[in-house]
């Protein structure tokens, strides 16, 4: 029985290690190299791409043991929980189990391009047309739906 518990504790320890490694990988999004790309030089110009990076993740784990039952040993029957001459009881665990899980995701989007040239430094913004289109569609669809509802109530 204790072997099973030890195995379980070992698997929980391994799970904990894997979890902390994953978290470390997620935290690497908070690194400058994740935001700014390698500078690219061509002629008199050097370009540094800049992006916003977001990452997130969650995890959970747990373990449990079966409800203890009294195991009797000896010849004469004894009431549960008591120890008497000729027979004794001891608490025995009826199995154990554990498990864990997690999930996460990351995104990156270009924000600007830093151009270093003979004229100086220029920051050129990058417009994400797809994201803007989705926002516009969502916002105006919601506004139109609300307007129609208000107009119909009249």
């Amino acid at each position, binding site marked *: 029985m204790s072997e099973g518990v030890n195995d379980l*504790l070992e698997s929980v320890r391994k799970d904990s290690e894997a979890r902390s490694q994953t978290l470390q990988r997620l935290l690497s999004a*908070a*690194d400058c190299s994740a935001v700014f790309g390698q500078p690219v030089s061509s002629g008199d110009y050097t370009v540094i791409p800049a992006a916003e990076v977001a990452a997130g993740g*969650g995890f959970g784990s*747990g373990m449990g043991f079966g409800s203890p039952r009294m195991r009797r040993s000896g010849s004469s029957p004894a009431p549960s929980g008591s120890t008497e001459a000729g027979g004794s009881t001891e608490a025995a665990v009826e199995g154990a189990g554990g498990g864990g899980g997690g999930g996460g995701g990351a995104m990156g989007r270009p924000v*600007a391009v830093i151009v270093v040239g003979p004229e100086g430094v220029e920051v050129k913004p990058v417009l994400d047309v797809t994201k803007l289109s989705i926002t516009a569609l969502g916002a105006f669809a919601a506004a139109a739906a609300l307007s129609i509802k208000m107009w119909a109530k009249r």
Partner: protein
Amino acid sequence: MRSVRDGIERMVELQTLRGPEVIRGSLTVTPVARSVTVRVGGNRGVGGGGAVIVRSWPSAVLVSVDGRTSRVRVVNATRWAQIAIMFAALLWIYEVWSRTRERKERS
């Protein structure tokens, strides 16, 4: 009150990060980024759960010429455009709502 603030400080971490310098003649360019990390739970050991959210974005570029340093902001044009679109949608809703109310009062 202080313990609540300490808890929030432990949970939310704000960082200013500096990227590698680019040197061209007398010009030195240093990109600067900001990062926010939110940690919830994550106790080591048996059982429990936790979550981490990290967001980093470029905030500025420090330009040094002959010892003088100026700061050029990095504007997130997409974010501002999104805010403008949402604001326009809210204005539209307000306009329809005020017109509807006006008509209701008149009738």
